[in-house]
């Protein structure tokens, strides 16, 4: 009996009227955990009942604690008929199991009903007493910390990165059980919610066990997804990166902090200081490399693996890989992180972690889903014991492929790794992608304190070569170069592969920064831009969008059709990306995410990335238009005009993104530098032969021109679409990475939002072109809408723009976007100079600030005042509001602000004032904590002082009165708002004031307007944190959160 769970039901409020006669409710509460249920007394005739129950105690195994949620059901007592359910609250108690996270859950939770939505709130208190468990063979993994954040969480340092962990569990979907025919939709929805909650818990526990086995204590970049495979079941799968993390206490010595947690240092600097000043005193020895390999590898995995049974060849392959794996395990163990897949779900890294980046590697595979053979027979997980095996094998296959791609790129690891699926009926596309990279092995091993000693490192690195996974002749070459110091601002761009033995054709030049090592002409990656990278100008969001019609088909025919289409799609997406990149005069893509979504009669492809100009890479060549029929005057004239438009656009973009790289001459470089008009030739893929496509790759790149041939109307269309991407309005920037390259001085305005659009194609005879246009417009209009809605936040940047496309039904296209708008200070100059001082100097700053050098020189006065000028109208409003408060507050103390007097207006509020703020927010005196949400791993202007645990919630909402709820838009609008509020409530109950790394994994909408019905499933996740204003000395969470809201200009974006 290793744990005691205690729950207390305090009160309810705003309950719905359940008794029409009296307009009141006789409410009571059932508290259930596992199979134990307690009930409170009935609180008669009240919409705001006070139960003040005793402590309900559950004595449970910690295994159950991890798997099960606490289930709180509010009911209306009925003497004569059955009690009516008002709604439920599921409370995940996982955060309480970790000593470092929350210690108590206490607060108001929305009472949620899958049919009626939120119906009032309930105040619940939950505590857990854990007994020490010495059983070594335990099934639980309490204490392993989980983070959605795909970097080393701030306020921790990575002692060791163990590597990839994955797990999946499978169950029958309650929606498809026979019993579903006789139970109410509510019961069915609740069964589903509960099951997924259970499965998530189990999955997390299992992954935790793996982490413990590896010797780690945390999982970062935890990515959990579920696949609703319909009748074939429900898969919940997760991947993550196992680490050993050390908590940084704010009181510890600053020097160790800066050295031992390079990430905290480096990442901060990304948003507070210009990149070039981010080079710390640490010198990194690195080697060079390069690549643009997306295309070559993509699609490789899509062809063969169709069908329920893998063909003999596949089987063979699998056997081989398996034996290889086994051998490897036997052969080499110490490097636990390399035991199977050297994959890392991280997208940002500690300084020096990333040595070289090869390029994007991806693999896709089309599968047919099996049916569950014995439906309804049992619903326990064990029943499907053989199921996970199949799914595991599928993923294993894909991962092997990714690994071999990485290897071909001369890389021993894959970073920024992610997996996804797209399911339509019985067809499922599995995709995985990542960035091939070479990592600095010192982070993989214990005791990375002695970073100064090169010998050690080298030794260790060579040691690493023994590992079969990385055994390759190239490594020798690599390690010999290892001692050569190369600046961190360009090191990661240098090619990791052998120049003479390139895995694919690419144009290499000497690095434009250090001029010693080779770099490719273009670099694609799935990771965030390293903080230390040297960038010219600003970045921007680049999207490639594509629709492809396909015939409706069943079974294997369908799967084959899809897998035949995939390579074409990947190729076209790649071409679009390339063209758009050139059009913006940029040479690298970060955060590349290619999603291919399958529908009954079409495939949708959406590639999003953030384009930047890496100073280390050569300037991109222009785009040249060539006609196929020379001599035709009108055509040539046409081409000339297009060419002119393209050239104009490029020039305009250069100005817009402030791209004006220093001119380099050939003499300086001492090697043939391709001239700036350098051309790489790229053919459009009109050929239908897949052979040609796979062979196409970039081999033409070796020749010189980047020529777009206009050989048919398609091409003209494409060029037009290339040019029709509307530029972002002035004052706006957008990117899909954490932060915008080229913007450093974020202010505290943060607005996270989710937007969903569903487009109905009414025209049955659509062409690919027509579809493309519609799809492109859909995405472009969404962006335009965002710019309009957020116009009051200008200057602002949309970060982590995450587009998800789906084809929920035939003729429907759904685009879901989650992003955060963040304000920044336009006037960057002072900031730049202010952030310049070297690290040594910063070490003399007081403790708190030292952990974070870039922020140490707290924003200069001018900056803040500038900000308030920018938001003139708001500032006024804000200040009048403050005036009001000032009047109300009895005493106004100005203690801690003194140190930064210049921050007056937007400074954190002294306690006295903020308290009054708090009461003000709640009018009635009951407080509602402000909870900020962001998909990023940080909140600008704040410091995360504590991670409270992972938030992973799954909700179903259904309605049978769609019209009455404002149609499908009204329905979804309410539901999303409800989901947000439930996330906020849970975070607040944990004592937090923000959610970082928030993401909406799933937003699945099914509608039937004719029946007046709709159903929606949403899955969200993130990390609950306590953050304080960066300038606060003695932080108390609530104060900080409130202070923020009041001062952050754009929070209340109109």
């Amino acid at each position, binding site marked *: 009996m290793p744990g005691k769970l205690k729950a207390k039901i305090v009160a309810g409020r705003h309950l719905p009227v359940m008794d029409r006669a009296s307009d009141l409710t006789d409410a009571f509460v059932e508290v259930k955990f596992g199979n134990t249920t307690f009930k409170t007394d009935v609180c008669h005739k009240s919409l705001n009942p006070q139960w003040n129950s005793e402590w309900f105690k559950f004595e449970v195994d910690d295994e159950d604690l991890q798997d099960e949620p606490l289930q709180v059901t509010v009911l209306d007592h009925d003497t004569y008929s059955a009690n009516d359910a008002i709604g439920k609250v599921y409370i995940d108690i996982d955060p309480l199991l970790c000593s470092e996270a929350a210690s108590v859950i206490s607060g108001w939770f929305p009472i949620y009903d899958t049919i009626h939505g939120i119906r009032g709130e309930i105040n619940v208190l939950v505590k857990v007493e854990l007994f020490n468990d010495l059983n070594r063979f335990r099934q639980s993994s309490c204490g392993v910390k989980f983070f959605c954040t795909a970097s080393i969480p701030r306020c921790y340092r990575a002692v060791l990165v163990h590597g990839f962990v994955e797990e999946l569990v499978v169950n029958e979907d309650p929606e498809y059980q026979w019993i579903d025919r006789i139970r109410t939709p509510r019961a069915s929805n609740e069964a589903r919610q509960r099951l997924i909650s259970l499965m998530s818990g189990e999955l997390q526990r299992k992954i935790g066990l793996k982490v413990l086995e590896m010797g780690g204590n945390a999982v970062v970049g935890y990515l959990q997804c579920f696949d609703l495979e319909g009748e074939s079941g429900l898969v919940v799968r997760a991947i993550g990166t196992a680490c050993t993390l050390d908590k940084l206490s704010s009181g510890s010595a600053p020097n160790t902090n800066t050295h031992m947690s390079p990430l905290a240092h480096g990442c901060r600097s990304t948003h507070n200081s210009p990149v070039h000043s981010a080079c710390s005193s640490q010198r990194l020895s690195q080697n060079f490399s390069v690549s643009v390999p997306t295309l070559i590898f993509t699609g490789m995995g899509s062809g063969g693996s169709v069908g329920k049974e893998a063909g003999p060849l596949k089987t063979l392959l699998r056997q081989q890989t398996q034996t290889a794996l086994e051998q490897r395990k036997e052969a080499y163990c110490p490097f636990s992180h390399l035991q199977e897949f050297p994959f890392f779900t991280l997208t940002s890294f500690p300084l020096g972690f990333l040595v070289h980046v090869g390029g994007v590697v991806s693999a896709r595979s089309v599968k047919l889903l099996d049916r569950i053979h014995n439906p309804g027979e049992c619903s326990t997980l064990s029943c499907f014991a053989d199921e996970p095996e199949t799914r595991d094998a599928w993923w294993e296959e894909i991962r092997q492929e990714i690994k071999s791609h990485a290897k071909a790129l001369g890389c021993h690891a894959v970073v920024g790794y992610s997996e996804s699926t797209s399911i339509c009926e019985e067809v499922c596309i599995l995709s995985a992608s990542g960035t091939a990279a070479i990592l600095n092995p010192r982070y993989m091993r214990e005791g990375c304190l002695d970073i100064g000693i090169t010998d050690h490192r080298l030794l260790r690195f060579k040691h690493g070569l023994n590992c079969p996974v990385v055994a390759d002749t190239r490594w020798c070459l690599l390690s010999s170069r290892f001692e050569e110091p190369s600046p961190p601002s360009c090191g990661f761009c240098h090619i990791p592969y052998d120049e003479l033995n390139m895995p694919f054709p690419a144009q290499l030049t000497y690095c434009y920064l250090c001029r010693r090592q080779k770099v490719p002409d273009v670099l694609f990656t799935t990771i965030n831009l390293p903080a230390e990278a040297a960038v010219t100008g600003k970045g921007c969001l680049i999207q490639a969008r594509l629709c492809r019609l396909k015939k409706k088909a069943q079974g294997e025919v369908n799967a084959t059709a899809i897998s035949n289409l995939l390579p074409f799609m990947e190729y076209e997406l790649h071409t679009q990306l390339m063209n758009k990149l050139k059009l913006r005069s940029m040479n690298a893509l970060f955060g590349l995410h290619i999603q291919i979504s399958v529908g009954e009669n079409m495939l949708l492809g959406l590639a999003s990335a953030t384009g930047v100009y890496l100073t280390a890479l050569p300037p991109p060549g222009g785009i040249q238009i060539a006609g196929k029929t020379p001599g035709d005057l009108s055509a040539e004239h046409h081409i000339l005009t297009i060419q002119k438009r393209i050239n104009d656009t490029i020039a305009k973009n250069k100005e817009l993104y402030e791209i004006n790289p220093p001119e380099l001459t050939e003499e300086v470089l001492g090697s043939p530098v391709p001239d700036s008009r350098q051309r790489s030739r790229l053919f459009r893929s009109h050929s239908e032969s897949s052979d040609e496509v796979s062979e196409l790759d970039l081999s033409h790149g070796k020749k010189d021109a980047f020529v777009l041939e206009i050989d048919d109307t398609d091409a003209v269309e494409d060029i037009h679409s290339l040019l029709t991407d509307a530029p972002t309005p002035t004052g706006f920037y957008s990117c899909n990475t954490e932060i915008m390259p080229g913007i450093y001085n974020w202010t505290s305005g943060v607005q996270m939002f989710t937007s*969903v659009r569903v*487009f*109905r194609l*009414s025209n049955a005879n659509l062409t690919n072109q027509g579809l493309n246009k519609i799809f492109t417009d859909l995405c472009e209009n969404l962006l335009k809408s965002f710019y309009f809605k957020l116009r009051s936040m200008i200057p602002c940047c949309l970060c982590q723009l995450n587009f998800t496309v789906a084809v929920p039904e035939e003729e429907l296209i759904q685009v879901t976007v989650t992003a955060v708008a963040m304000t920044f200070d336009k006037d960057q100059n002072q900031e730049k100079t202010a952030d310049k001082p070297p690290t040594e100097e910063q070490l003399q700053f007081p403790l708190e600030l030292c952990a974070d050098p870039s922020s140490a020189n707290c924003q200069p006065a001018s900056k803040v005042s500038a900000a308030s000028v920018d938001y003139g109208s708001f500032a006024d409003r804000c200040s009048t509001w403050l005036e009001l408060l000032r009047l109300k507050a009895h005493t106004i103390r100005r203690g801690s602000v003194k140190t930064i007097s210049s921050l007056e207006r937007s400074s954190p509020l002294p306690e006295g004032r903020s308290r009054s703020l708090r009461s003000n*927010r709640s009018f009635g005196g009951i407080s*509602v904590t*402000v909870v900020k949400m962001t998909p990023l791993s940080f909140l600008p202007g704040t410091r995360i002082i504590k991670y409270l645990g992972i938030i992973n919630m799954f909700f179903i909402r259904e309605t049978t009165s769609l019209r009455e709820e404002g149609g499908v838009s009204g329905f979804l609008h309410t539901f999303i708002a409800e989901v*947000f509020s439930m996330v906020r409530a849970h975070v607040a109950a944990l004592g937090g004031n923000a959610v970082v790394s928030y993401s909406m994994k799933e937003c699945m909408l099914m509608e039937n307007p004719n029946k007046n019905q709709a159903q929606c499933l949403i899955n969200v996740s993130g990390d609950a944190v306590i953050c304080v204003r960066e300038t606060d000395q003695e932080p108390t969470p609530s104060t900080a959160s409130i202070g923020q809201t009041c001062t952050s200009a754009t929070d209340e974006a109109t």
Partner: protein
Amino acid sequence: MTMELDVFVGNTTIMDEEVYQLWLDGYTVNDAVRVRMDGGVMEECEASADVLLSDTMDQYRTFQMCERLLHSPSKLGNQLLFQIPPHRQAMLIERYYTFDDGFVREVLGKKLSKGTKKDLDDIGAKTGVTLKSCRRQFDNFKRVFKVVEELKGPLVENIHHHFLLSDKLARDYAAIVFFANNRFETGKRKLQYLTFQDFAFCAGQLISNWTVGAVDNMVEDMDVDLDKEFLQDLKELKVLINDKDLLDQHKSLVCTALRGKTNNLNEMETNFKNLSRGLVNIAAKLTNAKDVRDLFIDLVEKFIEPCRSDRWTSADVRLYLTHYNNSVHLLDTFKHQVVWNRYMDVVKSSINILHVRLDESEGLSCFMEKKKSQRWGR
């Protein structure tokens, strides 16, 4: 090809004040889009009509979802569904409860019943307020009325506390509630020149002098209903006109005091008995609910109109009333000084404001007339 669904939800609820106002004013989405387009939002940020439409729909939806909460504003503060910064919550509430002066003038003093609600379309047509907006305003009145009707304690504070309105708006609502409860007649032609604010001022006076709460603030319904006992006591004032000696004494005292201070002394002297009789009769009749309703019309007919016909200035009226009131204190045989004061405080200030307004409105029309005649003359 249509947009089946289009939503945008921010963690902090995004609300545009301009759109909110359009929504409150009862514009349809399409009309609102048109207004916004004319307002030039589009040029401001390179938006298209589609974008504007989508944004307006989103906002309208948000407001509709919020409306339920706005009905009990204290809920807005501790609800969890929308994260709205406090000052914006205050803005939402204040604007939601703000009403059109033209509209409220039409329903002031009417029973807030279904019957009145049926007439809203006429009122809307008359005042140029959309029916939707009329309904909102009417429902607001009714809602506030219902909540505070049964509450103890000062009316304004109750409204302020339950509806979180600004002091000014709470006072206005107090006036509306008070007028609706006592059904004061305000719609007669003779009262048309008065604005809502004039009545609101009078209501303030009435609430703070004539209600139960004015003397004892721990009684139920104290601020909404007039003090019955006091109204009963008012009958005693009749002695001022019925007792000939007293009346003459009063008159001579007033005239002595007025001597040399006004040019209209003669008229005041001749009219004294008439005016005094008018005022005291009004007081004496207030035990009848019907006469309470006609309070303002009586004041106009019995006092203001005679003054007008004698061309008293507002200063004259003020002066006269001051001395008319004060002189009573010098009447040794008159025993009802307290009741008198309580009565006259309200009457004095009410007549003052009614007269000043009349002066202004007629002054204005005089001025217009003068201009007109000038033009004709030429």
